[in-house]
C-alpha cells in the first residue's frame, strides 16, 4: 500500500492553519504546519512534502519568494492561498509555477478537493478509491461494482464521492448535507432520499456497503458496523 502523501501547510492565521491541518489529516494525508516561511528550506529537507499549501501574504518572507524556493528545491505541488481575488494576482501565482490558487474565505472541502486533485496529477494520491468490491474513479466519476458500471445521477455521484472519502467513518446527516449540498441547504430530507436511492443502486450488485448507524448517521464500508 502506498504511503500517505505528505502535505506542508504554511499559513500565519492560526485558525486557518489548524482547520486546514485537521481537514487534510481527515483526508488521510500526513501533515505538518508552519506559521511562516522563515525555516522553509530546513523544513523542506526534513519533511520532504509532496505538496505545500502556501499563503501569499506571510510575515518575514513573501509568499511568491517562498514559491520560488519550493519550486527550486523540490518537485512538490503548490496550492496558494490568498485574500486577493483579482485576476492579475491569480495569473501571477499560476505563471510562477503554482499548481492551484484558492481565494479566502474558502470552503474547507473545496481546498481538500483541490489539494487531492493536484496530488493525483502528481501521482502521489490514488486515483481510485476502493470499498470492498466497489471501485470509484475519482477523476472520471465512474463507479464500478463487480465489473458492472453504476448508473448514478450527478448528486448521487457527489454523495458517493463524499461517503467514499469518509469510508470507514460514521458521518451525520448534517455532515452529508453540508458536504454535498453546501451550507445554505437546510432540508435533511434531501440526505435520506438520496442515500436510499444510492443504496439501492449499490446493492443491486452485491451485499450492503452503505450502512445506517441509528442516532449517528451513515457509514460506507465493507464489513457491517
Amino acid at each position: 500500500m502506498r504511503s500517505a502523501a505528505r502535505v506542508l501547510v504554511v499559513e500565519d492565521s492560526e485558525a486557518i492553519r489548524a482547520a486546514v491541518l485537521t481537514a487534510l489529516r481527515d483526508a488521510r494525508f500526513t501533515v505538518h504546519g508552519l506559521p511562516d516561511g522563515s525555516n522553509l528550506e530546513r523544513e523542506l529537507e526534513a519533511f520532504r512534502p509532496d505538496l505545500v499549501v502556501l499563503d501569499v501574504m506571510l510575515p518575514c518572507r513573501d509568499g511568491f519568494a517562498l514559491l520560488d524556493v519550493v519550486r527550486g528545491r523540490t518537485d512538490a505541488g503548490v496550492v496558494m492561498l490568498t485574500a486577493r481575488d483579482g485576476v492579475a494576482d491569480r495569473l501571477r501565482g499560476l505563471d510562477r509555477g503554482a499548481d492551484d490558487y484558492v481565494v479566502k474565505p474558502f470552503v474547507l472541502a473545496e481546498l481538500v478537493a483541490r489539494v487531492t486533485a493536484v496530488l493525483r496529477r502528481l501521482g502521489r494520491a490514488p486515483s481510485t478509491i476502493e470499498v470492498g468490491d466497489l471501485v470509484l474513479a475519482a477523476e472520471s466519476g465512474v463507479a464500478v461494482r463487480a465489473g458492472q458500471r453504476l448508473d448514478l445521477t450527478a448528486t448521487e455521484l457527489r454523495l458517493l464521492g463524499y461517503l467514499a472519502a469518509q469510508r470507514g467513518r460514521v458521518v451525520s446527516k448534517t455532515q452529508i448535507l453540508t458536504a454535498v449540498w453546501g451550507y445554505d441547504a437546510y432540508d435533511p430530507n434531501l440526505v435520506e432520499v438520496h442515500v436510499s436511492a444510492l443504496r439501492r443502486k449499490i446493492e443491486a450488485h452485491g451485499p450492503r456497503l452503505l450502512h445506517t448507524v441509528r442516532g449517528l448517521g451513515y457509514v460506507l464500508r465493507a464489513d457491517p458496523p
Partner: protein
Amino acid sequence: MNRLRTASLRRRVTVSSVLVLTVVVLLLAVFTDVLFAAQSNREMRASLLERTRLAEQLARRGAGPRELVMRIESATVKVRLTTPAGEVFGHAEPPDPQPPVGQLYRSGDDLVSVRRLPSGAELVLVADGGPVTNAQRRLRRLLVIVGLFAIGIAAFVLTGTVRLALAPLDSMTALAKSITRGDRGRRLAPDRPNTELGRAARAFDEMLDALEGTERQARQAEALARHAESVARASEGRTRRFVADAAHELRTPIAGVQAAAEAVLQAGTQAGPGERERLHLLLIREARRAGRLVEDLLSLARIDAGLELHREPVDLLALAVAAVERTRLLAPALTIEVAGDPVLVPADPERIAQVLANLLDNARRHTPDGGRVGVRVTRSGGVAELTVTDTGPGVPPADRERIFDRLVRLDRSRARADGSDGAGLGLAIARGIARAHGGDLRCTDPAPPWPGARFTLALPVPPDPLALGELQFHLRN
C-alpha cells in the same frame, strides 16, 4: 526676450521733418543761386554782344576811335581799341593772354570779346563781372541766413505741432490705462480702424477681448473646481457614513459567530452531538453571512472606484434561464417562468449574473409559497430590457428609489430560515453594475397580471449592425 524698440516718436518726427526741410532749403538755395548766376551771365553776355554789334556798326559808319570808345563804354562795359598804328584808346586793361578773335571768353569774372574792325584796328570789349559776382555773393549770404533762420523756426514750431499731432496717441494711452485700472468692458473703439492709430487701437481692443475671455474662463474653472470640491467632500462624508454603517452591519454576524462558538465551548460534554452539530452549523452560517457582506462591500468599493468590466457578447436570455434554474433549486415552492427572445449585449457575464441573482433572490424572498416569479427579456431599439416581476406584496411607490440606497431595508427582519439575506447592499450593487455598463436598474410600476414588485434592468445594445454581427459571430464560434 527682445524688448520692443520704442524711440521717441516726437523726436523722430521732428528730426526727420527738420532734416527734410534742411534738404529742401538747401536744394532751393542751390537752385536759386545757380539760376541767378545763369541769368546774370546771360544778361552780361547779351549786353556785351549788343555793345560789340554797336561797335561794329559804328566802325562801319566810319566813326573815329575816340567817338567809338565814348559811345561804347558804359558802367559795365569797357573797351580797348588798338589801331593798326598801335595807338590805344579806351579804359579796359589789356587782356592777358591775348584772346582769339571772334569768340567770347571768360577772363576771371569778366567777359571779353575781341573784334577786328574794318579799319584794321583791334577792338577788345570787356564786360565787368565784378558787380555780378558781388551780387551773387550777397545773394548767397542772404540765402544762408534765411535758410538757417527758416530751419530754426521750423524746428521750434515743429516741436509744438508734432506734440499736437501726436496727441491722439496720448489720449489712447490714457484710455487704455483707465481700462486696465478697472473700467472693464470698455473698449477704445476706433472710428477709423485703417489709420495707424486705428490699427493699434483695434489690436488693443482685440487683446482686451482675449484677456477678458481668458479671465472669464479662469473664473468659470475656479467655480467648477470649487463645486467639484464640495461634491467630493459630500461624497467623502457619504462614504464615511457608509463605512460606519457597514461596520455596524458586520458586527451582528460576527457576534453570531462568537456566540455560537462560545456556546459550543461552554456546553462541553453536556451538549449531545446533535446539539453541538447545530451550534457548529449556526457558527458556519454566521461566518458565511459576514463573508457575503464583506464581498458586497468589496463590490461596492470596486464600483465606486470605477468597475473594471470584462466585456463579451452575452445572451441575456441564456443568462436569465441559468439564473432561474438556480433559483428553482432554492425555492421549490415557487413557480418561476422565463420568456422572451435571445438578445446579445456587450457585458461582463459574471457581473450581470450577479445582478440577476440579486433580483431573483429578492423576488424569491418576498413572494410567499405558491406564488409566481416572472422573468422577461425584450429589446426595443438600442436597449435590451430584462424585467423581473413577482406576485408578492410589491414595493410602495415612495420607496422605489430609496431601496437602491446602500444599507437600506424596507422591513427590519433579518435572519430567515435559509440564513440568506443580503445586508441591504444587493440592489445598490446591482444598480452600480448596471450603470457601469452604461445602463440602469429601476423599480417601476407593476403591470398586470403581475401585482408584485417590478424591476427592470436596461442595457445598451450597440446600434451598429456590423458590431452586432461581430458579436453574433463571436457567440457562434
